[in-house]
């Protein structure tokens, strides 16, 4: 099998999948030409991400990393969520094939994009830390808010 059991578990039983009405922040990254788009929705109360949802177009790893990223930030403070790295997502999934590591970068970017949107909507003037760099990406994903 190409993927770990953990990846397959998150792929076949994705957590927090769906849309969110009245989300406090929405982030969309990736593009269809590259073959993966992730959309994250967050609900924030007292600086805590109380709920998170995602929608993803992409491969098994894209879906599993989205699902895992939502689990890792749910219930966390915004500042904690901003420390989420792609390697933490990969580790939580018990590894990804090298060509799929870019999916975990996309998941990290999607969370950061949702928080950036939350900052913007609430007039919060804070810097979003730069995302991990994706060495394997031939496709220029870029942020597409």
């Amino acid at each position, binding site marked *: 099998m190409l993927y770990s059991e953990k990846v397959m578990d998150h*792929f076949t039983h994705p957590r927090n999948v769906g849309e969110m009405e009245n989300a406090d922040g929405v982030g969309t990254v990736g593009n*269809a030409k590259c073959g993966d*788009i992730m959309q994250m929705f967050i609900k924030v109360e007292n600086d805590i991400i109380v709920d998170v949802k995602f*929608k*993803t*177009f992409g491969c098994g790893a*894209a*879906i599993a990393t989205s699902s895992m990223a939502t689990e890792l930030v749910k219930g966390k403070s915004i500042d904690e969520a901003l420390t989420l790295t792609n390697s933490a997502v990969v580790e939580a999934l018990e590894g990804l094939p090298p060509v799929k590591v870019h999916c975990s970068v996309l998941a990290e970017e999607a969370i950061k994009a949702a928080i950036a949107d939350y900052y913007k909507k609430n007039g919060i003037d804070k810097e979003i830390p730069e995302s991990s760099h994706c060495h394997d990406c031939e496709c220029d994903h870029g942020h597409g808010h």
Partner: protein
Amino acid sequence: MNIESKKIVYADNAATTPVLPEVVSAMTPCFETLWGNPSSLHDMGQKAKELLDDARARIAGILGCESRELYFTSCGTESDNWAIKGAALASKGRKRIVTSKIEHPAVLNTCRTLEKQGFEVIYVGVNSNGIVNMDELKAAVNNDTLLVAVMMANNEIGTIQPIKEIAEIAHANGALMFTDAVQAVGSIPVNVKELGVDMLSFSGHKIGAPKGVGALYVKKGVRLANLIDGGGQENGHRGGTENIPYIVGLAKALEISMERLPDNERIIRMRDRLINELLKIPYTNLNGDPTERLPGNVNVSFEFIEGESLLLWLNYNGIAASTGSACSSKSLDPSHVLLATGLPIEKAHGSLRFSLSHSNTDEDVDLILKVVPEVVGNLRKMSPIFPG
């Protein structure tokens, strides 16, 4: 998933096929008792040579050529390399090779290597159904052309090319004609004389023989440089002790394929039922030609979803298929074949190929048609680009 306990619907026969039991039986004596080297003069060797000669004659009979025009190789890729590089290196002065944009990587990458060595390669386009653009081909073949290389049937979208017509264009310009028939041999009738080709490659593992054996037909009088020099095997043109068990297996597998050709009617019925039913799913299109198509090939694109996740879900449900999606490949590029037909890159990501064979049944098609719409629906539900 437990492969042992769960019935697998194997619909990926264009990737490889299981070795047929009759083929295993035919090969077994070559391992157990008839293991001699056909180059040896003693009885053990000569018995092996008899097996080799017999296999060659049977295959030649099926393809419509002479025994001495048939060379055994290690695989289809080797045959493709040999035909193209061999023709290029033996060419006296001519520098151009004309091929198509939808060839197998074994042909495309061989051509790219030759480009680096100073040969000029023209990659002819295809129409939206994946048939080679004949006007473009005619314009590309000139009196500097040493070789025209166009595959007989495409491995991804199953289109069958007008090889006879292309061979006539090649010959009218004094060029050689090679066809990669790896997907065609065993699936549809192939006769080298009727096609008028100078070289034709095929492989064992696509037709029920093991991986690791292939062959190249080279028309009498055609000069090819050797790719593998060695101890004089294959009439001095392909070195290496002949793989007698696999060659015997190849002959047996090809004979069985020929006996089963009448079953193509049933395979085509299954194929067309699959295509027609899958096309009822919204935002779905057929890749390839509706009729000029291999009997078992189904290739469709589902918009707004990605092929690898589709494939994983099918696998989860016990169905083995294939995709031209970038995410399933090592290159991160979607299928060059689908892109050559003009399919937008977004749609190429959502492509799915089924390749049916004699071993598939109507029940297999039933299961595929039960699982695919459900999986497509679920993936679209979680896709941020699905318009709903």
